[in-house]
């Protein structure tokens, strides 16, 4: 289990979300959902895909999403 910041592109399952931010839920990022990291660089937002939508997540927020 590790947060999104440390993951290479690939598909993972969300395990836990350590932030009270409702917007993650609203975009379908909930424990158990599949999440695909499209690109992640040393700087800038992390790009992921959930279902058929593409989402940009700030580094702070991405650090709060634990996946495996």
């Amino acid at each position, binding site marked *: 289990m590790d947060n999104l910041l440390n993951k290479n592109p690939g598909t993972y399952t969300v395990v836990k979300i350590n932030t009270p931010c409702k*917007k993650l839920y*609203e*975009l379908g990022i909930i424990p158990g959902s599949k999440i695909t990291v499209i690109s992640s660089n040393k*700087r*800038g*937002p992390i*790009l992921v895909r959930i279902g058929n*939508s*593409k989402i940009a997540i700030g580094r702070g927020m991405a650090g709060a999403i634990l996946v495996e």
Partner: protein
Amino acid sequence: MDNIKLVALVGQPNVGKTTLFNSLTGMRQEIGNWPGVTVEKKEGILNYKNREFKVIDLPGIYSLMSNSIDQKIARDFILENKDVILVDIIDTPNINRNLYLTLQLIELGKSPILCLNLIDEAEKYGITVDEEKLSEKLGGLPVIKISGRYNVGVDNLKEEIYKYKPKKPCKIVYSKLLEDAIEKIVKKLEEYKNLELSEKFKSVPKRWLVISLLEGDPEILEEFKDKKEILSFVNNVKKEVENKIKHDVESYIVEQRYAKSDEILKGIMTESQLHEDIDTIILHPFYGFVIFGIVLYLMYSFVFDIGGFFSNYIDMFFGYIGTYLTSILPPIYSGFVVDGALSGVDSVLQFFPQIALIMFSLAILEDCGYLSRVAALMNGVMSKIGLGGKAFIPFIISFGCNVPGLMATRFMSNHKERLITLLVAPLVPCSARFVIIGFMAAAFFPKYTSLFTLGILGVVFGLLGISSYILSKIIKGKGEEFIFELPPYRTPDWKNILKITWERSKEFLKKAGTVILAGSLAFYWLLNYPSTDNSYGIVIGKVLEHITLWMGIDWRGAVCLMFGVVAKELVVSTMNIVYGGDVSSVLTPLKAFVFTLVSVLYIPCLATVATQYLETHSLKWTLFGILYNISLATIVGIVIYNMGKLLGFQ
């Protein structure tokens, strides 16, 4: 007119609500603001089989929670208009996430008409949904496949609206654990004869209230805050559930709703994944900025070069008319008509090409999906001053002219960030202010022009950053959290783009134009009556001197600043007149530096103020904008002048 039915379009952001709204209502539309906020409200009339319907384009919302302004506006509208016909628009390729909102509407006791929109895209990707089975599973709600942009199924929707009858909504059943908890609390609520809720919650289903309590909906919690007994009962039930599931109930409900959507879609939908990953480059921490730089450069040149070309001709045209009018009018009128009214109209119309071009370019960038990439790309930079990534564009455009810069905030979706940008972007030195800076640099610091310019810009940008940061702390409301959707890239919808361009430029002409014209006349009167050598303006200048002398500016300088309100470049020409042509012998270098700084800061020009008013729709915020600019200039002027004197400058 009294039995005209209301139709409201609800749905998540970017599902094609506005496009559908346009094809339902055609040209019969009215644009305003939702009361008290800078969120755009669109209303239009749909005519079908001799019946009229009033259609409302609600703000895009992900859920019915009351935790953002948009969500609260849409929810209040739905709660307050009990017999509105709801059209729930769904982005078919993302149907499982979109059903989330549908389930909430059903829980609220509504029976919306479902539109499976963007059906063209869905089919292209190979996603299919069986709309009859979907309708069945949702208790017989009408479900229509539609594409607002390509006019597929729009007539079916009109027919459904025409024959709409509210249905008793079906019950959405969750896990046994959750259902037991809900039932317990519903029973508790039923013990009360009268819950004394506010008007809009009086007739909502108890079940919805209970789920909202469990979800921690801010407004519902507020509603129950005096009912301690109920709240503690809810908390106990919550704890029981949390003990079993080992995490919080709020997210449990969310998971349950998604699970429900998946269950509904099971067997009636074929899924398919789309792949297109140009965004790895567009949002790349290096190439992304390079591309954005190029886009900005092109947009900037487009707006100001082409816009300037047209503005020149407009100016020339008015010049001819002015000369002609002066020659035929009696001299006592010609001043007021030509230099007052005509030049006011001239300046309004000169903005028009730039406004139209900036609206046009931003509408294209938005429609093809690039603007949301800009938001993601620039967020890191802009968040340091409390703003989101999209605010970067209004700032850049403001360098050319603040008026189109402020208009560019139209494309920002967050209410609070838009307001802050409207208040601080006028600090960005526009080309007219560069005229002042350039003139003063050449007159006083011919050897150090770039150092002088950098000094001024340094102070201005420092102040801009600080003001924006402070405003972001004191203005209420939430900034955008840094997580957002990047809609797929699409070919621009030209019809829509031209419509947006025309609507917004027209609004500028109508609303801001009137203010600019009235202001020009007022200032003309102030600065020319009773006579130019002894005008009211000079009287005011001499009063103002009591303050401006603290920053080393005498009444003549104050009069220049007053002219600058009409248009900043007038500061320079007025200076030549009031100081008798030889400015450099009157002012010391320190005074010149302070004067330049103050004239860059003190107040944006009349046109900018008018645009601020047009965009905030609020006299209060416009006045606040003016006052804080003036105070900022005064304080900074006094501080720098006196610091300079202490350091031994003249």
